[in-house]
């Protein structure tokens, strides 16, 4: 089971890195969202996949009676999902604003902060 997931994670990474290498912000953003999901799947697989019972400890016991599923990766993923979701929402708004202000989503054309004709400092006076 882990092997299948590992291949899937690899495909996710390949697709997201391909998209992020694009010049266009919107493709980069699609790559970013895939990248985040690839990581979530990776953490899930790293926690070992098993079809055990939910990690609920019966009343009166301090430790679970038998083998239970590992709850920690799910907690980690939940945190990571919330974070990557909020970042993605922010990035979408930012990219839209950048498109409105600068008029392009081509990163080669986004030279407002670093103008191409920014000359050298004065050599003397």
């Amino acid at each position, binding site marked *: 089971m882990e092997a299948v997931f590992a291949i899937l994670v690899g495909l996710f990474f390949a697709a997201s890195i391909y998209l992020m290498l694009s010049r266009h912000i919107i493709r980069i953003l699609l790559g970013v969202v895939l990248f985040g999901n690839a990581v979530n799947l990776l953490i899930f697989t790293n926690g070992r996949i098993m079809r055990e019972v939910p990690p609920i400890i019966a009343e009166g016991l301090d430790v679970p009676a038998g083998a239970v599923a590992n709850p920690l990766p799910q907690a980690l993923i939940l945190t990571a999902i919330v974070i990557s979701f909020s970042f993605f929402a922010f990035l979408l708004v*930012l*990219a839209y604003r*950048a498109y409105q202000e600068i008029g392009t989503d081509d990163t080669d054309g986004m030279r407002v902060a670093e103008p191409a004709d920014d000359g050298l400092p004065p050599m003397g006076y």
Partner: protein
Amino acid sequence: MIAGPIAAADWLVIAPVLLPIVAGAVLLMIRHNVRWHALLALVVLAAMAGTNGLLLRMVLDKGPVSMTMGSWLPPFGISFTVDALGAAFSLTASIVALVCCAYSVRDVDATGRRYGFYPFLMLMMAGVSGAFLTGDMFNLYVWFEVFLISSFGLLILGSEKAQIDGATKYAILNLVGTTLFLIATGYLYGTFGTLNMADLATKAGQIGEAAPLMTLATLYLLAFSMKAAAFPLNFWLPASYHTPPVITGALFGGLLTKVGIYALLRTLVMIFAAERLVLAGVIGWVAVATMLIGALGALAQSDIRRIAGFLVISGVGIMLAGIALGSSGGLSGAIFYALHSMLALSALYLLGGLMRQRGGSFSLHRLSGLYGASPILAGLAFIVSLAVAGLPPGSGLWPKVMLVRAALDVGAWQIAAAILLSGFLATIALGRVFILAFWRVEVSGDQTTTAGALSALGCTALVVLVLAMLAMGIAPEPFIRIATTAASGLLDASAYVHAVFPAGIGS
């Protein structure tokens, strides 16, 4: 489970994070009453600096201290573990933030306050302190994201065209960097089954060849080098740090790259010590390239803020050199340099802001005649330049001396040469700023600049930073002692581990 009430010392460990989070929430609730924002932020940052100072004293007296959340025993609960390294970084960061906050009172206008400059500042400081104090890898990731999202807010405050352009590049590249960090942490958990740093530091030595530790160490190096802006992952920094108001640049340039350096020290030196040794050659050449690219970039710029941005990168290279050397001398040099660099780079940005106030521009083409206009500013600029370039009596000298000596001890001539050469190039870059902006007589025929008076509060803020740098440069012994304690705590993590597991691991 841990029974009983929480000890007072435990509250102290968490206070530098708790204070800004609560203050950030309160500031959001009173966001329409902008009059109180600056005052509340100043009080809270002063309290943060105070608690950090107490924490540092406690750590220096008694060794590392640890507290674990929610009454869970480590490694199951999330630990906050403070050693000399974390406390010293956290204290310096809160002092820099306090000074920057004082400067911002005159600099941030009503619109900036209404859109949340101070809440963002508070939450960014919570993230920065949390990163310095936490003892858990995943928790470190969460604090990275906390200060990252707050820094996005600070960066686009004002919504200028250039800001949005810079913020797009900053946001995407930093998000990719922290996602790489998360990938590494996912593998780390899969390999070790634990995320507690003290637990990891112990198990990394025992697990041996059975696990892909080189992969993990390299991934962490990649992720944190991106955050620290090391060559060739530095391009987001000069694209973005000069776009927001100068106060934001001062905070970012002073604090954020150092969090990356701190995380590198924690992971590569403390946890993956054997793997760092294998990577030392790579890190060394990356450090050399970062130093020289940063210094050469600073030479080619005409905007003071962009010069400062490239000097931030150059400083990152110097700290990486210490990590590459890995000896006690090299690491203490890097730690001392990080403390110096937080003060010096913030001071450089604030200086740029004051030069803009008096001379009406950030550009070296426009600035002129400031020596006659404001001799006090010229004096401050002179000392700040010396400190940033690493010349006496500034604070940059001693850490560089320590690093060069550590490099020559092991025959790493390229690192020693790069430190000296980058310092020389930085001296030229800053010397040119001084010659053009201060000594050059008034440029005629340029009426577009709007010169004004210096704000007394802004000058006071810069004077405080300059005095701190002079103290570091003239009486470096206490700082060297702190840096050496921090470095030995990294090289031998037994005290750190003992603070988290007083009874030994597995008991």
